[in-house]
């Protein structure tokens, strides 16, 4: 049922693109918060940020300015890379990076 709280329950899962009305939670509610992460916006990108871990000074400005939660961090909060599944290639990280070469944009290949 739609109010099922058991994560193993099928109704807890994001309905598949070919789901019929039988598979959709009652009332059309979104079954679970944060499941937008299952949707990939990385293919919107026309430019790709490249993070250079050796040059990075770990100021975390890219993390705080990223609109798409796409700067990956470890448990210490250190920047360890880019989530290319969700990064839309806006380039804010590279524009705001204070260290030359630590975050650069290259054209995306298709």
């Amino acid at each position: 049922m739609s109010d099922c709280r058991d994560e193993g329950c099928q109704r807890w899962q994001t309905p598949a693109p070919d789901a019929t009305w039988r598979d959709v939670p009652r009332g059309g509610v979104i079954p679970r918060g944060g499941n937008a992460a299952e949707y990939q916006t990385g293919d919107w990108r026309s430019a790709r940020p490249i993070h250079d871990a050796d040059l990075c000074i770990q100021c975390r400005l890219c993390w705080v300015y990223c609109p798409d939660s796409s700067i990956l961090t470890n448990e210490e909060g250190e920047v360890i890379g880019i989530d290319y599944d969700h990064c839309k290639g806006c380039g804010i990280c590279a524009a705001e990076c204070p260290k030359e070469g630590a975050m650069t944009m290259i054209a995306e290949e298709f």
Partner: protein
Amino acid sequence: MAVNLRELSKKKVPFTGGHRLCAGCGASIVVRQMLAAADHPVVAGVATGCLEVATTIYPYSAWETPLIHNAFENVAATISGAEAAYRSLKAQGKVDKEIKFMAFGGDGGTYDIGLQSLSGAMERGHNMVYVCYDNGAYMNTGIQRSSATPMGADTSTSPAGSKIPGKPGHRKNLTAIMAAHNIPYVAQTTPAHWRDLVTKTKKALEVEGPAFINVLATCPRGWRIPDDATISTLRLATDTCFWPLFEVEYGEWKLNYRPREKKPIEEWMKPQGRFRHLFREENKHLLEEIQAEVDRNWEQILRFVDGK
């Protein structure tokens, strides 16, 4: 209450990627920074707008917090109801967790459509934070002007052409309207000044009673700026004193940032395509008029701050 990115970036922000806001959107930066600032679980509400539509496209939600969307005009009423229910449950001993309540609305849902429900919620004294992300037009439906649109901006309902040079008339000063409610906390900030925004969010969440934060947020489509110019454009907004950073605690005004050198408003407007027509010879007088309005507002804030 010092904040630093070393500590902040350790947090798991309850707002995921994969939402459908445009590349370089200011609204999601605001939400991420604010949720990162919250030390307690948050119940959020969103007014109709870009943020609501793009973060909750069925069957997905980018919010890892409880989220309520009701209508365009009533996010403040909706969240104040949730907060009242929480207080009741707490009084009955059914809930003991400390929970914070936040409402998010765009300028359309706040300056225009949701103004009376916001005013009511603030007056009733609910323990909630209302956040307006002001990108200066109804961007979600195709850049129609709102009462937050700056004078002279080209929008689809104030198109710059031979009849009018963009939006006629100046914008509404909503932050001052909210300050006039004499609530515990009112502030104005931008996500470019993340430390300022995070500190103000923490303050707003901690005060007992209603708080309001007005945040300038870019819209690369509506402002006609490159996606990666979001942060630099916001910085120019404060350096030109178009968007001063200040806070008002129980009617006490405090300036948080005084630019070393107040830049002319053209520097903020020039990179934005929505103001392009103002730089034509026949519209030059409008730039002077806009500068005069910015100066007036800035002088007014300085008067409030200095108590003169």
